[in-house]
């Protein structure tokens, strides 16, 4: 168990890292006590997107599959939550709607992924196909304004978006404000830990081997297509989780959260953070979302210009990601200092021993 948490695929190991992790978690847990409810609500809003980023990190950083379709599955699940919650009548059924909509997104990923992976699509074309699917969905939903576009009692409403679904509810208790915040934090911890264990497991070994050299991995007896499909379904399912949470959080969803430039956002977060590490993605995505929302209050366009600039700068200057680069630097410094101390300690004992002799 601990071996899986601290395995070779993830940076950030050992007691120091986990102490920091617990400190951050503790701070996150007591945060609502000190903040006002508006800020807590906003904080939950940032956390919604983190799942999508972690999913892309798994597919792109670990699996070598750059999917531009995160918002595709986000949209499928987001709309599915709306349709289900409206038709199933709110209340505790919203929890079932959440679970079902994520499953629907995963089934969609399974179908799309099956045709792409068994069809031998990889590299840049994987991106193009997923992007096309995304744009088609956005375009399709955009023209569903008429009253004839409805599923059960849920109107799709074209560009104005679907609304009127209940947020997550248990009995009569709406999960919102601090309660929603705690649910989000718990989900993120679970997903983060689960993904760490996945990438450090045998399956994770094969996933990174497939990224490095699919033919070689197949020559070791692994059906790499199955591992790629698994990666794609999990990564896309996480985008679905973001989508369903998003719809339940704001009680509406529009096609604009699927099409361009929304589709570019997860890529910016993950590229900037450092796609090859889950922790870097977690931290970086959160920082970017925070910054993005802060600027959006003044100017949406300016925020998007900044995102574009960050993407360009990352590709040109730090293809491995800025957060990861800084993180590595810090760890390097830290271990070097520690090692330096250890070395002098060894020298010390050596001297003592020779004294005794």
């Amino acid at each position, binding site marked *: 168990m601990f071996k899986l948490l601290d395995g070779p695929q993830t940076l950030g190991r050992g007691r120091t890292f986990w102490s920091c992790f617990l400190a951050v978690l503790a701070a996150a847990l007591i945060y609502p006590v000190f903040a006002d409810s508006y800020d807590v609500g906003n904080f939950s809003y940032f956390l919604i997107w983190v799942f999508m980023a972690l999913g892309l990190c798994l597919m792109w950083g670990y699996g070598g599959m750059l999917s531009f379709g995160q918002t595709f599955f986000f949209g499928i699940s987001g709309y599915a939550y709306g349709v289900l919650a409206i038709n199933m009548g709110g209340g505790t059924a919203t929890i079932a709607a959440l679970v079902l909509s994520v499953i629907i997104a995963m089934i969609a990923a399974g179908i799309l992924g099956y045709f792409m992976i068994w069809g031998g699509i990889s590299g840049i074309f994987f991106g193009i196909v997923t992007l096309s699917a995304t744009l088609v969905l956005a375009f399709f939903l955009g023209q569903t304004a008429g009253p004839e576009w409805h599923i059960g009692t849920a109107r799709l409403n074209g560009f104005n978006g679907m609304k009127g679904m209940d947020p997550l509810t248990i009995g009569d208790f709406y999960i919102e404000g601090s309660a929603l915040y705690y649910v989000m934090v718990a989900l993120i911890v679970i997903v983060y830990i689960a993904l760490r264990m996945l990438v450090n497991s045998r399956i994770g070994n094969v996933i*990174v*081997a497939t990224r490095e*050299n699919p*033919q*070689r991995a*197949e020559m*070791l*007896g692994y059906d790499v297509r199955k591992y790629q499909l698994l990666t794609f379904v999990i990564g896309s399912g996480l985008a679905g989780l973001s989508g369903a949470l998003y719809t339940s959080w704001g009680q509406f969803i529009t096609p604009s959260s699927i099409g361009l430039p929304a589709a570019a956002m997860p890529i910016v977060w993950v590229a900037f953070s450092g796609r090859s590490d889950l922790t870097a993605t977690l931290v970086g995505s959160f920082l970017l979302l925070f910054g993005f929302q802060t600027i959006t209050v003044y100017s949406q366009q300016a925020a998007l210009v900044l995102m574009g600039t960050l993407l360009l700068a990352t590709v040109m200057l730090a293809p491995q990601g800025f957060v990861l680069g800084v993180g590595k630097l810090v760890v390097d410094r830290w271990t070097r200092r520690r090692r330096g101390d250890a070395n002098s300690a060894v020298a010390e004992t050596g001297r003592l021993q020779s004294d005794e002799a």
Partner: protein
Amino acid sequence: MTLVDVKGVTKRFGGLTAVSDVDLTVNAGEVHCLIGPNGAGKSTLFKLIVGLYPPTKGSIFFDSIDITEERPFARVQRGMSIKMQAPSVFKELPVRQNIQIALQARFSGAERDVEEERLLTLLDLASESGKLAGALSHGQQQWLEIGMALALQPQLLLLDEPTAGMSPEETFKTGELIKSFNAEGMTVLVVEHDMAFVRQIAQRVTVLHLGKIFARGSLETIIQDEKVAEIYLGKTHAH
């Protein structure tokens, strides 16, 4: 007992017939070398046996099971293990993890750890185990890949020019390594054109020329076959 049985296999690429109606048998427990001049179709035949190409005609049996339609991973699961010509290790991963990825299919837990150390020592890579595989020298990468192929504990080890780019000493060491595994019962099929290396390890030899079987037999008979020397070294040498 016949372990690999290639029956009447032909492979065409457009108008070019790379392998034409070839029969090849590899017996269990032998070191079999597939030799021939450049362009003889050795590598194509190798890829057909491995499953990278589907044959145009003919069928391939492994352990009496028809594997003609199977993908490479399924053949590996049946007990083959493959090392391709160009070194293709997982370059961005540490040496140790390369070995682990290969080992985890057959071993788990403490057994895997023991086997991991044994292989690293055997391959002289113990001191390099933390390095990225891409940072190893060419010869070391070849060794690492042979090690990964061995980690699967195969019935049949398939090697395509395993000593390409190695120094004479490394080549000799590789030969001894292959022989030691053969002594433990592993069947080995090697594609090779370095005759010194073939002499060192081969028990039986099949000569391929222009996509067809040219000669086959024990190492001694092939070495003494003048026609083989002819196609290898040109007619002027034979006179």
